[in-house]
């Protein structure tokens, strides 16, 4: 299982086809803005980045996580792919 990180909206196009069933995807930085759009897979978002942008209550199904959660997800994954 791969953990993917996406840090800006334009990076979604890079990794759209590369996220496999069962992989996890975390939005961070400007990437949290993707939580406002329909997405082809479930995502998590860094809570601080969503709060910074006034979006914490606006990201629908997207689960907000802390950096400690992100560290746990890193450990649980086989590897991490960063898209930027």
């Amino acid at each position, binding site marked *: 299982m*791969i953990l993917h990180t996406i840090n800006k909206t334009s990076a979604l*196009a890079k990794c759209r*086809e590369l996220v496999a069933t069962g992989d996890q995807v975390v939005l961070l930085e400007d990437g949290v803005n993707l939580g406002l759009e329909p997405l082809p897979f479930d995502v998590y978002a860094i809570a601080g980045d969503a709060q910074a942008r006034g979006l914490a209550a606006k990201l629908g199904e997207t689960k907000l996580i802390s950096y400690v959660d992100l560290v746990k997800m890193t450990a649980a994954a086989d590897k991490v792919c960063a898209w930027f």
Partner: protein
Amino acid sequence: MSDILFVFSQPPHGRINAQEGFDALLMGSAFAECAVLFIGEGVLQLVNHQQPEAQGFKNYTLGFSALKDYGVSRIACSQSALNHYGLVEDDLIIPVETLDADCQRQWLSDFKKVLTF
């Protein structure tokens, strides 16, 4: 399991990052079993007959033809990216494997580590 997959997704010459990604691949190949996958705008690094010198850029892509000598024997690109840019094999600097999305996902899974540039 092979060691490091380098994924190149940026176009050449607009900024130095694509060249620095290639430098990292060369360094990686000295220590580990590496492969490279070009996706999205990254396939544009493979376009042949580039002439960046006139703009003052180094033509680091000439180094692609030496990748096999560096032990990078698996070189591939996204078929859908080639199609998107209307590129065919004859347009490219070196022969590359072309992969569909399933195969690209398999490549990501096959390597111990993935470095994206």
